[in-house]
């Protein structure tokens, strides 16, 4: 039987990842609704959600049918690649190496692009429907992968899907209430947390798939996550320290002082 540590981290990963991606999708859907009308925005969103649900229903049972060790290894490798990619980007953002994602800016850019786009704004507005559909599908693909990976490998497809849906519902409710992009959500902190959790799951499943024994069994996931968090925090500290030490050497116009 799966431990609470395993189930809890799987559901938390799906919920937090879905929260981040739903916020990004909401920004574009809001831009479509505001500029081109709410009917095509909703049509594109619903079509996108239906497509994502189909993916989960089609691939979930298929993954669960694979032989357990191959499935653990395959899912583990994909989770390591996916989770460590998220964590790498979150570390670089937290240390100020790359810019933070700005929802207000993304909303302004998308709105401007939609205003400039030609095509009918009444009746069947294909540009608006496709823009909303693409936003939901592209952002949702990452959530679908996480739900399938943490769900199928741990026999938690239902709870992981519910976690993801709960986050979507939360974002939609708050988005409808405030009627503007959710720029105050600490996206990078959430991405940092999801990156830590998914990397921990990845390492755990790769180890299981290779037949390595983790001390503490499922509880090891929490210890692995703590080590990923400690390493990531140390890296952020080290990079920030280096950048602070280097900053006074540069004059405002970019001239380097010897």
């Amino acid at each position: 039987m799966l431990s609470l540590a395993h189930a809890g981290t799987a559901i938390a990963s799906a919920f937090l990842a879905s929260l981040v991606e739903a916020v990004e999708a909401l920004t574009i859907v809001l831009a479509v609704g505001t500029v081109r009308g709410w009917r095509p925005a909703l049509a594109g969103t619903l079509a996108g959600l239906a497509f994502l649900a189909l993916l989960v229903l089609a691939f979930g049972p298929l993954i669960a049918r694979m032989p357990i060790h191959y499935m653990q290894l395959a899912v583990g490798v994909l989770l390591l690649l996916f989770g460590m990619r998220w964590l790498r980007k979150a570390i670089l953002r937290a240390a100020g190496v790359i810019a933070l994602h700005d929802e207000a800016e993304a909303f302004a850019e998308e709105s401007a692009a939609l205003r400039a786009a030609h095509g009918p704004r009444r009746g069947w507005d294909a540009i608006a429907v496709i823009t909303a559909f693409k936003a939901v599908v592209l952002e949702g693909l990452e959530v679908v992968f996480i739900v399938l990976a943490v769900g199928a490998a741990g026999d938690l497809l239902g709870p992981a899907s519910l976690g993801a849906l709960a986050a979507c519902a939360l974002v939609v409710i708050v988005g409808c209430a405030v009627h503007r992009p959710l720029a105050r959500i600490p996206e990078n902190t959430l991405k940092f947390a999801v990156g830590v959790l998914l990397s921990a799951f990845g390492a755990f499943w790769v180890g299981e798939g290779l037949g390595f024994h983790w001390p503490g069994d499922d509880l090891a996931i929490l210890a692995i996550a703590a080590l990923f968090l400690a390493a990531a925090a140390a890296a952020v500290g080290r990079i920030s320290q280096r950048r602070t030490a280097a900053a006074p050497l540069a004059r405002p116009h970019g001239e380097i002082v010897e």
Partner: protein
Amino acid sequence: MKWLAAAAREIAGLFIEDAGFALGILAWVALAAFVLRELPFGDPWRAAILLAGCLALLVENVLRAARKRPG
């Protein structure tokens, strides 16, 4: 066919951003599968070495990326 290539690029992009980093992770997993499994370590050590390699890859990659992009 264009949309199929675009979809394939999107899916690959979910896992690969820095090709060297992704290759490093794959190489480390392959090393763990073919070499670490054969070494005469006890069980908890194999898992610990696998994890230590992943952490080292991550820290080395972000420190290198930060050096390449000075503020």
